């Protein structure tokens, strides 16, 4: 049998196993149907095509990209215009620290100090006086330390009647004398003394015939630069507490000690004096700060934030030492940043806020990262591929439709029809594509055309601008084909013009059309992506490979966020390469004498 091997290369060298082997004794002719496996022309083309490795690679690329773009959007858990956000710590104004340079008043319960009196008080302190008057009421100032004064007001607390050598006191409402007070009073009155002292308070006596008016310097308020902050939110200081604390502070400072103690309402407190402030501990629980006393005011920016005394102390220490950062917290330390602004310190602390996750590096949630709008890039690549590929196909379809019709009619009829159509082709050939596309793009920009409508216009314009070449090719082919015998036969058998053109002529042009279509597909994708890159093609929110890459015009993105533009660029390159590989393979397969 070897000598009878078929001489044509395209026939399979070894007979297909399915063909029944003829009995050996029977001699059969060379062109016997059973021996010669006839392949149809399209089968031959197919065989040649699949032998081309680059072409197969191209087909594989196109299949993968099609799958990626068509099926991908259904698999992807995200939408193409879904914006991703995340919670992050952002440094925001946390608190402001000020040095208090005016008196703060702690007014005794039940008493009052009018604003006018407060103004007088400041003046008196500035002048170094120890008393002042306002609206007929006299006030005395008792210095506790340089920045704290106790204000007292002389008020009548009672009267005493002198009756037959006896002293009968009657008191003003609210004045409850302690035991022994009456004896002291009687003794002083008997001696006709001007004043007497009882339990730290000095009482003045004014005699008038039989009646003695008892006046006492009643404490009204405490004026101090210092502010008391309690460890528990909402707790307000009392006059007694503030006064005792200030006094203890003054005592400790005077004695040059760092600690002191005082008692208010039966509770013992310990005060630890520091340069910036004093910390107050309750004797019952010495570990937890009870309150702090300082002339620094720490004002939180957010109304619901409470600043603990310990934290405040740490902050003030940092401020005093001129630090720019403070780390606070034992379990998860938080870094606070302190910045001085004239007489203020601004403390910035981390605050949780929702941020758009833009330019996020690739991660498990976002395999390719996110773009400048916080959208998932992989999803946008998929949708973008769908748009880019469908633009390619629709444009090729439009130009094929117009081109084949025009070329077919022109080539078949000839004469003035041919002449007219060919001049139209010439005109279209000369119209520069890019300028027209750019002009249309900017006009649609001016009119703010809806992105989806714009997409349709774009396809139509691209298709309408690219039919001329196809028409010319089809016409040329048909001109040479119609002179051949099979067309004469078709005409002789009385086929209609429509049938002759579209059933007999056009199929013979199809190889060239397929080659030109694959080429146009690739170049259309390039054109579309370049146009979108320039911002004149497919518009946000629709994704296209071109408009994903637009971000690269920002040099920062170009250098730092490669994952934004490189994948999209690779998608374009690979897809167009796929089309070109396939086109090249088809060209070789259809026209074997060129290559093999």
């Amino acid at each position: 049998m070897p000598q009878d091997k078929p001489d044509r290369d395209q026939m399979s060298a070894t007979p297909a196993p399915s063909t029944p082997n003829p009995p050996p004794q029977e001699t059969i002719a060379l062109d016997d149907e059973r021996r010669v496996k006839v392949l149809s022309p399209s089968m031959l083309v197919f065989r040649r095509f699949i032998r081309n490795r680059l072409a197969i690679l191209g087909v594989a690329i196109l299949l993968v990209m099609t799958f990626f773009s068509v099926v991908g959007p259904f698999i992807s858990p995200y939408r193409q215009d879904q914006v991703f956000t995340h919670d992050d710590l952002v440094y925001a104004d946390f608190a402001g620290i000020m040095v208090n340079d005016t008196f703060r008043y702690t007014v005794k319960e039940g008493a009052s100090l009018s604003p006018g009196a407060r103004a007088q008080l400041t003046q008196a302190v500035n002048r170094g006086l120890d008393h002042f008057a306002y609206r007929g009421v006299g006030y005395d100032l008792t210095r506790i330390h340089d920045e704290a004064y106790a204000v007292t007001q002389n008020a009548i607390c009672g009267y005493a009647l002198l009756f037959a050598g006896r002293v009968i006191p009657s008191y003003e409402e609210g004045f409850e004398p302690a035991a022994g007070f009456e004896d002291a009073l009687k003794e002083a009155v008997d001696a006709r003394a001007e004043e007497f002292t009882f339990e730290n308070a000095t009482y003045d006596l004014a005699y008038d015939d039989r009646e003695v008016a008892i006046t006492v310097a009643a404490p009204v308020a405490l004026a101090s630069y210092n502010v008391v902050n309690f460890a528990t939110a909402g707790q307000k200081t009392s006059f007694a507490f503030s006064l005792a604390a200030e006094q203890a502070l003054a005592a400790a400072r005077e004695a040059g000690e760092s600690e002191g103690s005082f008692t208010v309402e039966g509770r013992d407190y310990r005060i630890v004096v520091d340069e910036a402030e004093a910390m107050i501990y309750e004797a019952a629980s010495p570990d937890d700060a009870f309150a702090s006393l300082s002339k620094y005011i720490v004002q939180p920016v957010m109304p619901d934030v409470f600043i603990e005394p310990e934290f405040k102390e740490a902050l003030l220490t940092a401020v005093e030492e001129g630090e720019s950062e403070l780390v606070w917290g034992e379990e998860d330390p938080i870094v606070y940043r302190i910045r001085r602004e004239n007489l203020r310190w601004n403390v910035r602390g981390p605050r949780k806020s929702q941020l758009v996750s833009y330019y996020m590096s690739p991660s498990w949630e976002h395999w390719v990262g996110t773009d400048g709008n916080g959208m998932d890039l992989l999803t946008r690549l998929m949708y973008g591929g769908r748009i880019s590929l469908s633009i390619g196909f629709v444009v090729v379809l439009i130009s094929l439709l117009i081109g084949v019709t025009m070329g077919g009619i022109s080539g078949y009829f000839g004469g003035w029809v041919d002449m007219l159509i060919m001049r139209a082709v010439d005109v279209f050939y000369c119209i520069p594509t890019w300028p027209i596309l750019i002009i249309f793009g900017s006009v649609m920009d001016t009119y703010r055309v809806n992105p989806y409508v714009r997409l349709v216009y774009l396809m139509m314009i691209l298709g309408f601008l690219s039919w001329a070449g196809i028409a010319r090719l089809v016409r040329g082919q048909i001109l040479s084909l119609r002179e051949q015998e099979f067309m004469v036969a078709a005409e002789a058998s009385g086929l209609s013009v429509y049938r002759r053109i579209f059933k007999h002529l056009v199929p013979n042009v199809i190889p060239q059309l397929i080659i030109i279509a694959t080429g146009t597909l690739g170049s259309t994708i390039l054109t579309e992506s370049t146009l979108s890159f320039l911002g004149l093609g497919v518009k946000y929110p629709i994704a296209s490979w071109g408009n994903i890459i637009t971000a690269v015009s920002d040099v920062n993105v170009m250098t730092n966020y490669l994952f934004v533009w490189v994948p999209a660029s690779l998608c374009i390159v690979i897809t167009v390469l796929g089309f070109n590989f396939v086109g090249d393979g088809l060209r070789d397969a259809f026209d074997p004498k060129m290559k093999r």
Partner: protein
Amino acid sequence: MRQFIIKRLLWAVMILFLVAFVIYLLMRALPTSYVEAIARERAAAQTGMSYKQWLEQLTAIYRLDVHPVIGFFHWVGNAIRGQFGTSWHWGVDVVQKFRDVIPASIILGASAFVLEIVIAIPLGILAARKQYSLTDYTVTFMALIGISLPTFFVATILKMVFAVNLGWLDLYGMVSRDHRRMTDLQKVLDIASHMIMPVLTIVVISVGSLMRYTRTNMLEVLNADYIRTARAKGLSERRVINYHAFRNTLIPIVTIVGGTLPSLFSGALITEQLFQIPGIGWISYISMTRGDIPFTMFYLSFMAILTMLGNLISDILYAVVDPRVRVS
């Protein structure tokens, strides 16, 4: 031959007229956004005239109030005399602006053109001579990749490597900041260094097609009978390739290359825009996006003429180079 050329020229003029008409109609059919924008701007500047009044006045100034067909004949009448009007956006005579910017485009185009030919033709011939070798596959593969690359991608990669990472070249522009203070030699070198990336971009994306074209034609020639004859009569391989094959390959290549000659003047629209080279391409891009009708009309007609010329040159060259065409 002369008759052929004259006939073709007449046709070309005819087609150009039609192209210009189509473009003019297109431009007029487009919204006169430029005029509207200017009118809005001036009305907002409180010049004492309302938007409507400005619009009317501007429309009259820019001759947009006449019927498009009449307007077209006005335009053609002026264009024949070389008057293309004053550019709306640039504020100078269109032809003057064109003269100012065309040198940059010619430098860019010519350098790229020379490089392309120097690279593409030898490589294409090499690939054809060693068909199916590794060289052939490499050349084909490179050519296809070049064709598949989008301009902006090539430009971005080049910028990234040479301007950002290595810092050798400037990202944009045609001259450095201190260009005015340079000596003449430095000025030339400065422009040359700014042209490197744009030229490379153009070469990378367009060298592929010429390379493939050369290869295909060389293959065709190598399979021709007269090459077989030349080999059969014992000529050295070098003589066969350089003398018999190469000369015949030149016929289609010269035709194609000749046809692309006019496009040297058309500027590289996208590349110039990407590198902000003030050539005809970038300037036209700005004019087009701003709706500057006089400049755009000029540029579009200019492009059409160049395309026309390209076709004409390749047809004539074909007849000139190939004696067989002349005989028939």
